[in-house]
């Protein structure tokens, strides 16, 4: 029989994971939508955010500084990566872009492994958010509850940047038609670089805020990357709302299936993706023009 307390608690876990996936996927999806590059190093950037935050935390003991340093560090990595390598791949075939970003991701993972070893590291939750909170009908770790709020705030910030600023307008226009945007006299390369930086920062931010929930390992990004792909396929490539909806769906599927039998979590996730591919090949919120 299903234990209802357990079920609700898993629903919350699904919400936390879903929000996390939504944030990481939005980073991936705005990069793809604007630049046309699927960044296979995105999982590694998520991992990098966690480790950068870990370093900042061990030096300062401040979680806030860890968050800021972690996100900014990954943003800078993203900017440099775009400037030095990705920029030269816009006119090359899709598969070259996939190969090069995959290779970069692998180098990041191995570099971190070299510096920090393969053993897992932990970042404790900030003291105010430590412990558990009673929700009346059940107890739930306080930090996980807060995490939903933190990620929601980050998604809101991303939404405001995308929908309320000039650069966001250019990005959204670029997703629809990047040729038109460049012919309007806008320096697309600068926009591309900024978008890559923002997308990377989303992954890095997710990496550090999630660090107290999981332990850090160099290849923690692999599993997240796979889940992110499923989210993007379900939501539709290039769609910000699609990433959020897809993220929540994927998070709940993983959590609820895990409660019954963890072995089937991926099978169910995959079944959902297949269903979407059969019924709506371009994803729930995707449009045909984005391919």
């Amino acid at each position: 029989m299903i234990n209802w307390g357990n079920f609700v608690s898993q629903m919350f876990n699904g919400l936390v994971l879903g929000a996390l996936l939504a944030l990481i996927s939005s980073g991936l999806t705005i990069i793809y939508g604007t630049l046309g590059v699927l960044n296979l190093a995105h999982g590694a950037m998520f991992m990098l955010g966690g480790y950068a935050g870990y370093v900042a935390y061990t030096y300062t003991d401040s979680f806030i500084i860890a968050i800021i340093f972690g996100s900014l560090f990954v943003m800078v990595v993203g900017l440099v990566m775009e400037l030095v390598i990705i920029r030269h791949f816009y006119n090359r075939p899709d598969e070259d872009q996939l190969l090069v970003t995959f290779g970069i991701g692998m180098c990041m993972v191995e570099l971190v492994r070299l510096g920090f070893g393969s053993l897992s590291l932990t970042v404790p939750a900030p003291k105010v958010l430590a412990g558990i909170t009673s929700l009346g009908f059940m107890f739930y770790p306080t930090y996980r509850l807060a995490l939903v709020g933190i990620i929601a705030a980050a998604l809101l910030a991303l939404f405001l940047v995308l929908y309320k600023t000039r650069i966001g307008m250019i990005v959204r226009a670029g997703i629809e038609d990047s040729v038109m945007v460049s012919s309007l006299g806008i320096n697309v390369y600068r926009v591309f670089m900024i978008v890559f930086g923002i997308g990377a920062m989303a992954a890095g931010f997710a990496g550090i805020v999630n660090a107290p929930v999981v332990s850090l390992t160099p290849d923690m990004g692999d599993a997240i990357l796979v889940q992110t792909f499923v989210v993007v396929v379900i939501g539709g490539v290039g769609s910000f709302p699609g990433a959020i909806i897809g993220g929540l769906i994927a998070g709940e599927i993983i959590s609820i299936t895990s409660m019954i039998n963890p072995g089937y979590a991926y099978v169910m996730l995959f079944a959902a993706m297949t269903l979407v591919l059969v019924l709506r090949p371009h994803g729930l919120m995707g449009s045909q023009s984005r391919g």
Partner: protein
Amino acid sequence: MINQRRYLVEALTAIGLILAPFILPHLGFAPNTVNRILVWGLFGIGFDILFGFTGLLSFGQAALYGTGGFFAAYLLTQAGFPHVVTALFLGMIASAVVGYLVGLIALRRTGIYFAMITVAIGEVFYFVEFNPLADWTGGENGLPGVPSPSFDLGFTKFTFSSGWSLYIFLAFWYFIGIVVALRIIRSPVGAALRAIRDNPLRASAVGHNIHGYKLTAFVIAAAYAGFAGGLLGVMQAFMPPDAFMFHTSAELVMMSAIGGTGTLFGPLLGATIWLFLQDFLQAALGLGAAWKLVLGLIFVLLVCFLRRGIIGGIVDIYDLVTGKKAAREAAAEAAEAADAAGTLEPSSATASTPKLALRAREGDGYQGPILQATGLTKRYGGLAANSDINFTVNHGELRGIIGPNGAGKSTFFKMLTCEVPPTSGKIVFEGNDITGQSVTDVCQLGLTKSYQVNQLFSNLTVRENVTIAVLAAVRGKFKLDMFRRIDKVPGVTEQVNQTLAMVNLTARADTPVAVLAYGEKRRLEIGLALANSPSLLLLDEPLAGMSPRERVETVKLLRSISQGRTMIIIDHDMDALFELVEKVTVLQEGRLLVEGTPEEIKGNPIVQEAYLGGVLEQ
């Protein structure tokens, strides 16, 4: 290139495999390393057919490698199945069946979607192996005790257990794998796969069922992966669960990219470099865990600077040393200059060339208009590109379509060839309602189009281009003649030669398309549409971008093509068009404005109004 000397590659492969045990130990390769290289190499042959030849980059091949491996290992260790080779083949079949099912899902999309879906599928298989199927696969323990192959000949018994004796067994299967793969890539199916990599749009427009061929490539890759997976178990006497891991897929991709794709041998070379460096960096340089970082950096640098991998680099250096590249570039420039000067004289040959006989089709004997479109409308959101066009063309007619820019001419053509479905209306071709059919089916019925912007297979030669189109005509849209040589398909060589002669490219048959002059590319574009001897040929601005001299020659070419054929031509060169066609249709703002003979159209004040504006008022 690969066809020049029969069995040369096969012979060299055999020699290489025989010599390897005598040479490689001196270079520091242990027999077990060489054996692992062979298993990767065999796994990679199938992957190269999928990625290098068909252009489908899969990050999920481990799923199929593991499936085949565990299937064979289960039969041998748990089910008490005695015969190793049979078990390997059963594993291969299991993997091919799974590959077919996976392909059905993954191939619903292409490009990055395909890559993402294959990653996800790979991960699903990994988790399924660990959990739901743990009772059969041993979960994280894998399946130990996979027996070595042995053959009892009565008087003596051969056992291929480890080291160089196992090498003989693996090298034999690698050789078989290469021979089979070479047959496949030299077959019509191989030609279709290359066409898909180069230009999927045109591959389907010349009448190939590209989805079917992609699925074929996926299943072939799955079969290779499954067999190699089985060999992995045999080699290690243990089927490891990490065969299913993402890292296995990723290493395969990296090895192939390092070695060079599209050569079949790239993965073997890549695996050699990979495993050699792994040993070298770890043992000789004492780098420990950093070896993977070094390999990663090498991989990134190779992708950045050496697009076609080590083999591609060697070919480039060879060309540079022998001066082949310079010669090719010089030839290209010469062709450009010659074509611009008009010295090639396309017309001189066309007058006497044999005409392509019209192919017998189901629609033959049908009387009445060859094409009838009624109420054809296409809307893009609020914009009506075409509205309510009624259009009829009779057998043998030569029709011209004119109209100002933005009149909807190209959209109209796209609907007629079923590249885009009409919002409403009906298209009847030779009595068949073709509305909503695919461009491939329509091409097979005998309606083709030459594109306004060249859609060629630009990495292939002129002859290969035309061959691809002719193969679709003589074999139908899908046929699995994987072991047949292209020149053994009846009628292909003749039809290719006739088509080349008709568009006067016989002398340029073995030239890569990339180095053709513009006028020649334009003629090849028409040639591709002509290759299946269509009963109705649509030409979208065949004269666009041509010099006045080229125009004259091309008009002559079009006239010679039109013998016994129905053609519809869009062009802005009205002098040329009026001279060529019998009847002209004028489109304006997505509507049919007027139809008539060239003389009627020339004198028609409405047409003048449409083009110049304000003529009526004067």
